């Protein structure tokens, strides 16, 4: 049982939780995730560890409430308990130790980029960040990222920052600055677009994949992804891979596996949506 130490709302359906997990806080590294089971009977879902506070013994998890399970999780309040948290899982980010990194975050993916940026900053890497969202209220972690370097913001509708996609901003930056590596985390189409942008420029690009998982320890193989033509398990071989080699179409397709079941679960979710009651 892991107590929720703090909760805040970052955007209309994105919530930040600070959860007690002393051991995980001590040993986790950027890029790693935990498997969370909110309560008895709940799904096991993977969530990237956005941050950790060793002295408080807490980790930070950012949850986007999209399906039944993430909505359930997002409805938990400060002082509530999360039944199970296992981790840290997955391989840590391969952090460069000098040079310049372009870090790109789309929507809730920005929370996943954040620990990478912190890790790079410890290595004295120069960091340029590009983050984006549908509109102003979907842009998260801007303030946190600004501590570590220049941050460029864009929104699809132009309500904040530059109007357009993160790839537009990234393209300009790649044109004018020397960039040694790109870290990109966000929706699959965004990561694919970034990989397509950097491939001809031959700039190494790391993406973090979010396939459906069950155990998170390599036991079930449900998180199969194809990288450079070879099947990998994202939970133990990743979750971060060379974006130029990832089969994004397959990832997109496999993510849709339980669409029909998800509809049933959401429809049958008879409790009134607690999100509307959430106070920020």
């Amino acid at each position, binding site marked *: 049982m892991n107590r929720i130490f703090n909760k805040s709302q970052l955007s209309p359906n994105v919530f930040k939780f600070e959860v007690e997990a002393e051991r995980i806080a001590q040993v986790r590294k950027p890029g790693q995730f935990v498997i969370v089971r909110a309560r008895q009977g709940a*799904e096991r879902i993977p969530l990237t560890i956005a941050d950790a506070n060793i002295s408080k013994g807490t980790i930070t998890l950012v949850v986007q409430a999209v399906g039944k399970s993430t909505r359930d999780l997002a409805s938990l309040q400060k002082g509530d308990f999360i039944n199970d948290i296992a981790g840290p899982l997955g391989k840590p980010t391969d952090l460069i130790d000098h040079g310049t990194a372009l870090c790109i975050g789309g929507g809730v993916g920005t929370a996943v980029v954040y620990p990478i940026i912190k890790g790079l900053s410890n290595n004295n890497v120069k960091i340029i960040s590009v983050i984006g969202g549908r509109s102003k209220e979907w842009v998260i972690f801007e303030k946190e990222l600004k501590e570590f370097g220049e941050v460029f913001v864009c929104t699809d509708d132009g309500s904040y920052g530059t109007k357009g996609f993160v790839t537009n901003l990234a393209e300009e930056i790649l044109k004018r600055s020397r960039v040694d590596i790109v870290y990109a985390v966000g929706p699959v189409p965004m990561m694919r677009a970034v990989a397509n942008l950097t491939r001809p420029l031959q700039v190494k690009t790391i993406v973090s994949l979010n396939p459906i998982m069950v155990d998170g320890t390599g036991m079930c193989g449900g998180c199969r992804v194809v990288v450079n033509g070879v099947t990998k398990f994202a939970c133990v071989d990743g979750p971060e891979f060379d974006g130029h080699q990832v089969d994004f179409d397959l990832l997109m397709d496999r993510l849709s596996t339980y669409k029909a079941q998800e509809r049933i679960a959401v429809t049958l979710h008879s409790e009134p949506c607690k999100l509307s009651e959430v106070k920020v």
Partner: protein
Amino acid sequence: MKNCVQCSSVHSSQQKLSVRERLLIPRQKMPEQPPEVRTHNFDEVNLGFSEQLAILEARRCLLCKNPKCVEGCPVMVNVPRFISYIAEGNFEAAAESLFADNALPAITGRVCPQETQCEKTCVRANKGEPVAIGHLERFVADWVLQKRTRGLNISAEKSGKKVAVVGSGPAGLTAAGELLRLGHSVTVFEALHEPGGVLVYGIPEFRLPKSIVRAEVERLKQAGVKIECNVVIGRTYTLDELRNSFDAVFIGNGAGLPVFLDIPGENLKGVYSANEYLTRVNLMGAYAFPKFDTPVLTGKSVAVIGGGNVAMDAARTAKRLGAESSTIVYRRTKKEMPARLEEIHHAEEEGIKFEFLAAPIEIIGNNEKWVKALKCQKMKLGEPDASGRCRPIPIEGSEYELPCEIVIVAVGTKANPLLTSTCPGLKLDKRGNIIVDQNGMTSIPGVFAGGDIVRGAATVILAMGDGKRAAMAIDQYLRD
């Protein structure tokens, strides 16, 4: 009254039956749910012996002076001794006897391949049917669980030593129970949210109810075994850290890495490893979706690749989830199938189809990338291979398609490198399994291992045998 030759105790009523009388009793049939009923539920198929049936079956035992059944048992249960107590109706004494040899009889009584172990070597098997040792073992264990009278016999003398057990499957739980009994303090680390390993994620409810596993785990906990779930050794703690905080370590983390066939189409939607399929249904309760949140795909037609117990479990699970046709696709024949006879028999009764001498060569998808069919090639049997089984040889031009919506790959598992890769000092064989000596000790002093991480995919009882032997060796190691 004479003293029993097996156990030196007196069995009054036992002595009255002659060998001839014992031989005349036919093997008692295990009461079970009828196939047409059980394919619509997940309740246990076997219903268990009544006291009367158990006593009658127990009286079939000839109480051999030199019992071969004991030699056939990987944990050397003194079979005639506990059976003779059942025959007398002294179930408490039967339990005392059985639990002294086997920490988890409610589980082994259900999932052991008795026909290749104790019952194979039973002298009555030479002429007719062996004593139903497994059913009797289960009877005694269930009797205890119902009465809730018994804990573990724990050594009053505490050694003051601490042992870490990695994994709470059959190997880990057995080792934990034995070590506690020997006076050591034991902490078990489990990666998943519930203890039991393959007993809870792999073996279906209809073969081994989760309530049985929970009861056995509870018994160990009440006796003093500490179990920490959600701890992934190799990630949450390293093996070195365990070595620093404990006097000895037993690794029983299983062979949890599914093997795929490396054929085209394996990443289509609708293709599962048996591990994933069974984990979703068993551990996560997907059979009760949407009551439980984890879903599992269902289809009218399901193909399961493989011929072992896991393949049977998957095919029978699919049937219960509503598949009109659930087919086992196996590249050899029924004779070579590694599954237990009882499982094959139950599967046949439940209408599972068998496609023998067929090897999958491709999984075919529709336009939306959902599984549409399994393309197979017909095989014929050739000379025996290294495993002693006839090698299947493809027949050119015999390809055909088996229409199906779900494909479950149940062709085995291999060593999960999660733990071993984080501990370079641990010697592994070519397949990634941990190498141990005759005492179950690894290349690192004080670190022992057993079960599937040593053997590759094997059985529950072999893992338990390893756990038991390693516990004895650990005890010795700690006392030296």
